């Protein structure tokens, strides 16, 4: 009886956990915001109800048998044990039902596969552990990374409404236009999934897959990576922002303007102080999660930069570490992720903050040569 008592002891505190604080009892698939997602939803519901009906019939007979043919009620077993007719009937009926399911499914699938005549092509690249979006026609692109802070993840801070489903820069697309997604990956297999668009496509290194969507309503739609891709598979969300065509055009212009400014910044003559000021912002956004705002890190996984051999040693080493990362550690290669200006700024900042006072700097042009 010991095990039973132990069980009670364990179960009781569990049941006593009082609050279901996050009440969002969504139990079903989203209807989504595209024609495809709607037909997928309808297909899902149709098949669900067919299964429910079959279930009611089969389990109905079973429960009837359980209640009516109990030995304790004096039931005497019948002798029958085969009937070819019955076997044939219950082979054919499911077969017919299946054909009924296959027909609409085939139609929806064919629509999904028709990627022709797109108005906008976006290349999506999966990285460990972030996404990159490239707008092919307009010649710009950017990374989209998790915006939730490490403090929220490690329970040091209140979790926000969009905990783990927020990014620094969402994918922006216009509504009512056929947007084609060309999906690939940089390292391992990822999968780009936004439930509201009913789009899920594996991102495979060396290969390109495609999918499409015509979003009908402006709004923000959130999704996640759906293929195990390593340590931070759970931390690379997708946010799609669908806007009106006009808003989209404005956004593209702003993006291009930003790229132009970036280019100009790269070629301007920077002073040490300017780089340090900009570097602080870059640092807080990209580095502080691990190395901490104080530069003291969280040893041993995340070493301190304050007074560290790299940040106060030869600048070549420092630049290499930031550009190419350190394999086998959590230190990523930031070279492909940040602009030359930001890279120069952050390296300069790290060499001159928290009493590191090296007094040297690296310019964006120098970074560009090494990149």
């Amino acid at each position, binding site marked *: 009886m010991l*095990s*039973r008592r*132990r*069980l009670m002891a*364990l179960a009781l505190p*569990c049941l006593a956990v009082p609050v279901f604080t*996050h009440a*969002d*009892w*969504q*139990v079903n698939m989203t209807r989504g915001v595209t024609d495809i997602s709607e*037909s997928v939803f309808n*297909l*899902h519901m149709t*098949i*669900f109800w067919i*299964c429910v009906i079959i*279930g009611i019939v*089969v*389990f109905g*007979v*079973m429960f009837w*048998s*359980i209640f009516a*043919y109990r*030995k304790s009620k004096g039931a005497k077993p019948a002798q*029958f*044990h*085969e009937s070819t007719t019955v076997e044939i009937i*219950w*082979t054919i009926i499911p077969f017919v039902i*299946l054909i009924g*399911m*296959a027909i609409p*499914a*085939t139609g929806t*699938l064919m629509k*999904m*596969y028709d990627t022709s005549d797109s108005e906008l092509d976006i290349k999506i690249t999966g990285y460990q552990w972030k996404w990159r979006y490239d707008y092919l026609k307009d010649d710009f692109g950017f990374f989209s990374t998790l915006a939730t802070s490490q403090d929220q993840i490690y*329970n040091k801070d209140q*979790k926000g409404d969009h*905990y783990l489903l927020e990014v620094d820069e969402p994918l922006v697309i216009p509504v009512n236009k056929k947007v084609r997604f060309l999906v690939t990956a940089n390292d*391992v*297999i990822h999968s780009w999934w936004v*439930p509201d668009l*009913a*789009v*899920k*496509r*594996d991102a*495979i290194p*060396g*290969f390109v*897959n495609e999918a499409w969507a015509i979003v009908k309503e402006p709004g923000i739609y959130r999704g996640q990576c*759906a293929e*195990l891709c*390593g*340590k931070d*598979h759970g*931390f690379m969300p997708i946010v799609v922002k669908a806007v009106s065509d006009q808003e989209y055009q404005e956004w593209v212009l702003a993006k291009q303007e930003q790229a132009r400014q970036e280019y100009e910044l790269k070629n301007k003559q920077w002073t040490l102080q300017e780089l340090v000021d900009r570097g602080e912002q870059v640092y807080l956004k990209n580095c502080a999660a691990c190395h901490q705002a104080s530069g003291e890190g969280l040893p041993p996984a995340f070493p301190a930069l304050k007074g560290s051999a790299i940040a106060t040693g030869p600048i070549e080493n420092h630049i290499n570490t930031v550009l190419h990362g350190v394999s086998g550690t959590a230190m990523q290669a930031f070279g492909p992720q940040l602009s030359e200006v930001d890279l120069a700024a952050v390296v300069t900042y790290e060499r001159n903050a928290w009493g590191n006072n090296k007094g040297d700097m690296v310019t964006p042009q120098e970074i560009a040569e090494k990149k």
Partner: protein
Amino acid sequence: MSAVVGEHHDDHHHGPAKGLTRWIFTTNHKDIGSMYLWFSFIMFLIGGSMALVIRAELFEPGMQIVVPGFFNQMTTMHGLIMVFGAVMPAFVGLANWLVPMMVGAPDMALPRMNNWSFWILPFAFTLLLSSLFMEGGAPNFGWTFYAPLSTTYAPPSVTFFIFGVHMMGISSIMGAINVIATILNLRAPGMTLMKMPLFVWTWLITAFLLIAVMPVLAGVVTMMLMDIHFGTSFFSAAGGGDPVLFQHVFWFFGHPEVYIMILPAFGVASQIIPTFSRKKLFGYPSMVYATASIAVLSFIVWAHHMFAVGLPLAGELFFMYATMLIAVPTGVKVFNWVSTMFRGSLTFETPMLFAIAFVILFTIGGFSGLMLAIAPVDFQYHDTYFVVAHFHYVLVPGAIFSIFAAAYYWLPKWTGHMYDEALGKAHFWLSFIGLNMTFFPMHFVGLAGMPRRIPDYAMQFADFNRISSMGAFLFGVTQLLFLFIVLKCIRGGKQATAQVWEGAEGLEWTLPSPAPYHSFTEPPQVK
């Protein structure tokens, strides 16, 4: 080797040897069967503990107990241990115990190979488990180990994982050959194929699946090994290979593997339901044909695990239709079980409770399987908790419940004692509640958009995850009760008769309880 041979001959005349050597050198099908079952139960507890680590981390949003890298090791090891360490050896154990008794044979056809095939397993799993303590940690790429995450990006322990898989594969293949040889060569006179109990039939078909697909698994891990250490590029696009090829070869093994884990469960249910319905199994021949057609179909449906990798339209359609077809023979089996119960004379001892729960819950898992087969909708289900709910519904109340049912059903025959019925029923109900609490809410979070294999999740999934975690602990702790019941039954209890169950039919019930060390020294006559 001469010691083994000598032991074998001694066994024949004097029953079991004493001490540890009995277990190390034994060639007796009952000893080996017991070892398989105990081994599988230990693995079930280890794999289950890992599941509890996973559920504890997922109890609430945020990272609390483990770090993401270790979480991935837990999901991977949980899957590998449950599939290859718990479910498969348990069924081989049941086959060892029951096939010779059911076909009227004295022992398995190849007793020395039988000893080998068991004793490889502890080494294989020690190797696999030791990777937890290695530099870089245990395998962390999921039990499906997709390349290149499992090759270029794998921890160094992947090599040990590969050797572990090779050893398990060799063990399974030897076990399967033994079952085939026993069934084909050692049947009692008059026991024609179509008179064999369904458990024997399903195991014969399973054994053929095993020898057909375990070598493919061995092949795919060998290719990984070569990619990692010998510079080939089967799965690396850089050298002209293709990571998607890995998935094709893996699932060519993987889908039949799913049926390897469920066909013997069908067999168990087909033995137990007629007994407690006191009525012959309805549609015996159609059960055999249905099992065989499920096995054949399992070879042409593998790519339904890969609907999102970008198959051409024609491929998607073919695999969708083929997969849907499997619903037909599976449906036939369910209808036959229900018809067996219909107008029977039912009692509800623990094995029957587990068998009924098996039919109901396996059918629910079958329904979600049918939904997953619909390719366009699978884009929404794929790699979400809906899939996790689906395969746990077919594996836990499917495979695991049938193993519990089998254990309760044949324990009196094995030990000579009746188990404690009240405790058995408690075990059933607590397991039943725990499992539904654990896995049913997973359907909801999956549909609402929660991907599988993530260590942390968005706030809207919190409540259902909390329920799942509580259910998982209830289910997990309940299994210690099973251990207690089995130990209690071995040590004593009401003496079991030879017949044990009023409605039981089959050769094993003609032997006394406990069954003698050598089953049928004189072949029985089957009418």
